[in-house]
């Protein structure tokens, strides 16, 4: 790659600054009191206080909700990646009756606006007794995460030469043994990237998550919406909670940064 000049660096710095400003504003708000926030513009907190964070850490509703959110996101990520792996392999390596239609049908599930299907989802999960459990949300999020996972993984599978499959077959590997022992390590990079995307889309979605839960499995975002109504807007508390919602995602991206930096063109290069 050619060396980066001065101009691109300045451009990048400006972009990163613009990206961070709203986030800085959120952090700024979380350290100020409500009266202070509403009273006027202030570029930094004059009397910073971590009070709002301690309030959240000491309140069992908030702590429990944070655990719930992490649980269903984790379950969803594991299910999505696990079932998408063999499917991505099949779509890339074989032709079969209806393959192209099936692939596009999977993608169409990404195009169903959650706002429309929230009520039917509620009916469905209520009927089968999963309402208000982490499983309801984890399964519901499969609707859009599995297609995304198949889509991304298919790209990674296409980067692995088919000769490897053939050599393994000649060497007497059965399909499951080949798939787990040889193939999965080859696309470990792709699994990491896919898991990141599944984590992200499940973590930020909250319309379905809120509709499918009541008290036991209330997600973090739903607890946030509750503090809207109680005694007006508690901006400072909302901001503190908002800052906390960024942490798990930041941790996950830190773990997959090498996979992204290693690069993937999704296909033969």
């Amino acid at each position: 790659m050619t060396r980066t000049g001065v101009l691109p660096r300045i451009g990048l710095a400006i972009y990163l600054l613009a990206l961070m400003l709203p986030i800085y504003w959120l952090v700024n708000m979380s350290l100020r009191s409500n009266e202070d926030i509403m009273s006027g513009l202030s570029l930094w907190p004059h009397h910073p206080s971590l009070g709002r964070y301690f309030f959240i850490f000491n309140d069992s509703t908030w702590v429990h909700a944070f655990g719930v959110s992490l649980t269903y996101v984790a379950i969803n990520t594991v299910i999505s990646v696990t079932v998408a792996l063999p499917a991505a392999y099949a779509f890339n390596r074989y032709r079969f009756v209806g393959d192209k239609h099936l692939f596009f049908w999977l993608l169409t599930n990404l195009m169903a606006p959650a706002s429309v299907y929230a009520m039917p989802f509620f009916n469905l999960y209520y009927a089968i007794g999963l309402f208000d459990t982490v499983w309801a949300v984890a399964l519901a999020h499969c609707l859009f995460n599995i297609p995304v996972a198949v889509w991304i993984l298919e790209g990674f599978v296409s980067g692995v030469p088919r000769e490897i499959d053939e050599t393994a077959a000649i060497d007497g590997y059965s399909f499951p043994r080949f798939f787990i022992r040889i193939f999965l390590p080859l696309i470990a990079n792709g699994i990491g990237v896919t898991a990141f995307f599944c984590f992200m889309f499940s973590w930020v979605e909250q319309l379905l998550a809120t509709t499918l839960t009541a008290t036991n499995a209330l997600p973090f975002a739903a607890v946030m919406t509750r503090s809207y109504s109680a005694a007006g807007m508690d901006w400072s508390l909302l901001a503190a909670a908002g800052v906390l919602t960024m942490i798990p995602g930041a941790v996950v991206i830190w773990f997959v940064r090498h996979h992204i930096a290693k690069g993937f063109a999704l296909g033969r290069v």
Partner: protein
Amino acid sequence: MDKPLNNRAWLLVAPVLLFVLFSALLPMMTVVNYSVQDQMGENHFFWNGDAWFRDLLNPATEVGARFAGALVRNLAFSVTALLIEVPLGIAVALCLPRKGWTVGATLVVIALPMLIPWNVVGTIWQIFARQDIGLFGAALTGLGLHYNDTQDPVSAWCTIVIIDVWHWTPLVVLLSYAGLRAIPDAFYQAARIDGAGRWAVFINIELPKLHKVLVIAILLRFMQTFMIYTEPFVVTGGGPGNATTFLSIDLVKIALGQVDLGNAASMSLIYNLITITLSWIFFTIMTQLDRRREE
């Protein structure tokens, strides 16, 4: 490079089918069911044929005009957002560092906006865009611009576009960056020997290699902008007037606000059909281009 025909591959796809059908089929059927019925009083439904659909697709009726308006607004929004996000995303990806500790740090910073739950995004901008206590609104007002995201339709519309650009350009950046990193150094060396300029390298080497990641980025972004709900709902509430009433917002207004299930259901089916058709056209064009280039 013909793939072998093997119908046993269905066995590998079966688990995916099972999970997705479970969540897709029944809710979809419920919506279809409502779209052909009308309601009289509590829980008394009768067959209504295609009446909801005919009303909806006729711009002369009230609901038809409303739908057409929301559709045009939404298309304009999606096109604007994509036209900004895709070139910007690729440009930023080209500027990112390639080695050293800054790589990881920059990637985390860039990904942050995407990892914020959508209602929190709305909350941030609700304050951030205010003229009295928010930095963004105050800065624009300070520059002498007539900016008011809750009163002025143009400001409101631009605010939603800016939020979307802020929120989702990182997706294009991450995918493009990964695509760029996958290009072997030999390609660049060959280009240098040929004396190719920066622009020629971009057009002939980098852009073709980004093809597959860009298909994912553009299609995902199109679908998401076409279904945008939370951000306008929280920040502008679809207003002022109906300046930011996009399709999803309008739909929820009809379904939950007016409890008009027949209208809402037929509207969501047509809406879904439009999204699928547009995505299909795009998907086909992109894959055809890819095939032609490989031949």
